[in-house]
């Protein structure tokens, strides 16, 4: 369905979800959602409020286990419902309502993000073995690099909660990047941002794409998604109603109906 012509070579596919369904009590949050994300693209997922975007995101990142369907990532099935293993497999995420480790500095937040790639255990930490020391120094250096990458290295020693809103978003992205993800999943990163901040975010995501990272972008800001994404999928009432390049999706009648509501005349749009 997501690849009707079979034109995508297998190695080009990073993530494919097939037939994902999720119910909460009587509410069908996701109904048979299938989609494919290719390597190196910025993939947008949009939809009206309550369309199931966040539910899908949470299935993908292991917060929920799907009732049906499966997700294949980088050639392997994703273990459902185990966030830390999904992070290990190479999916890193940010949160819609920023969730940083408030008592820590910006730098330490990023260092925590690297946790899954580090090996030091109790004994190594207590004895501070050469291996542990080297790993620690490398982690710190890498964290600085990432802070520089997102443009806030001068704030490395600031407490995370003291950063401005836009910088906190950047810090969250740096923390996610620290786990060396193959897919970076951003949950409404532009929410609550002003125009300047959104512009900066856009530049950052373009830079990430330029460096070869695959990005999944869930957004409310349709303008940002349409201007930035290589391909876009639209969810409505838990179902995927469209998936294509922005220009085609924009003109899709079901998308127009979904966004403008039933009373609007699709012909007029």
């Amino acid at each position, binding site marked *: 369905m997501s690849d009707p012509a079979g034109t995508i070579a297998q190695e080009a596919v990073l993530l494919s979800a097939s037939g994902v369904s999720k119910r909460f009590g009587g509410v069908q949050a996701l109904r048979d959602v299938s989609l494919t994300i290719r390597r190196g693209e910025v993939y947008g997922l949009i939809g009206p409020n309550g369309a199931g975007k966040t539910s899908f995101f949470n299935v993908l990142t292991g917060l929920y286990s799907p009732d049906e369907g499966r997700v294949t990532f980088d050639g392997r099935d994703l273990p459902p419902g185990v966030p830390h293993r999904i992070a290990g497999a190479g999916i890193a995420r940010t949160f819609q309502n920023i*969730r940083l*480790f408030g008592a*820590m500095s910006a730098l330490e937040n990023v260092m*925590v*993000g690297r*946790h899954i790639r580090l090996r030091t255990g109790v004994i*190594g930490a207590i004895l501070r073995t050469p291996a542990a020391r*080297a790993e620690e120094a490398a982690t710190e250096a890498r964290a600085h690099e990432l802070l520089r990458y997102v443009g806030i290295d001068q704030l490395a*020693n600031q407490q995370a909660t003291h950063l401005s809103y836009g910088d906190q978003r950047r810090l969250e992205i740096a*923390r996610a990047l620290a786990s060396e993800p193959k897919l970076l999943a951003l949950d409404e990163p532009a929410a609550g941002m002003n125009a300047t901040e959104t512009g900066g975010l856009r530049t950052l995501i373009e830079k990430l794409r330029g460096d070869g990272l695959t990005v999944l972008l869930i957004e409310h800001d349709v303008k940002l998604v349409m201007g930035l994404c290589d391909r876009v999928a639209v969810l409505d009432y838990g179902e995927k109603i469209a998936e294509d390049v922005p220009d085609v999706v924009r003109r899709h009648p079901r998308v127009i109906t979904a966004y403008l509501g039933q009373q609007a005349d699709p012909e007029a749009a």
Partner: protein
Amino acid sequence: MTLPGDPKLRARLGIVLIGIALAVLPFVVGANFGNSWVRIIDFALLYVMLALGLNIVVGFAGLLDLGYIAFYAVGAYLYALLSSPHLATAFPAVFASAPAWSVWLVLPLGALVAGLFGVLLGTPTLKLRGDYLAIVTLGFGEIIRIFLNNLNAPLNLTNGPQGINNIQSAEIAGQSLGRSFELFGLQIPSVTAHYYFFLALTLLVIFICVRLQDSRLGRAWVAIREDELAARACGINTRNVKLLAFGLGATFGGVAGGLFAGFQGFVSPESFGLLESIMVLCMVVLGGMGHIAGVILGALLLALLPEVLRWGAAPVQQWLFGKVLVDPESLRLLLFGVALVLVMRWRPAGLWPSALRKRELAAHAEVA
């Protein structure tokens, strides 16, 4: 006297001065106030160990453990059983003579068994919400006490409410710490020998805590405390990491318990009640959750408080009201309760909170 300007040199000088102070402390205190005060300091060191152990659980990982003293009890009873005639008396068929294990075997064993108890308790409960964990640990602490109280029949394992007597003191290099002895022409009383023994182990515990805090694990604990969901998204296996905190904390409790049994020569269930757990919690909370120096301060303050009250509360009340209204023990508990409420209200980070940890990399980085 002028201090050297270089901060590194100053820090070293400070450490040397503190070292000298700690080394002569028991002699100064013993000579001026008597050996009973050295004994009080020995107990204060045990509390420092306990508080640092609980700090890993409550302060670093943010897990409220209200039954921590149970691990102390496990360590103490294990030491008691392996260093007293109790087993030989209760089970003459199995034990021909009183077991007298070396302290270097009993302490690690106590740590291990206490840690095992921690993992056993933690495995089913650590995935639960924090407040459930508080209640379960609270119950666990009571259960351990009930078992200690009642396991004297039909098999007399713990000797019930009477407790276990005649526990051998620790023996180091052939010298029992239970009697005073002469070393390099100096007369070393038992309390002073214990002081150095406890101090060495306390320093070891502090060292371990500092190293852990500075590591990937310390960061993971704080991350879980700050935001568990985000920690999981960062790839932290929260269940294992919490279990590790729980087990390590229990381990420290087990060691302190063993030291307590050897020092006191006697253990009974009433040393391990809920109020003891709360007292250790107070030390952590009052001192500064998650801040090693603060927790040490809290432990010292609260360990010395009852002595100060015993010494000062009655005269002050006599003077104020003409009679003693509140006995020192109740007053102490009352103050603990009030302190918990007030600290949470006005100074939730404790008397000596941890500062934001700053890192200086740029200058001395060798790895890229």
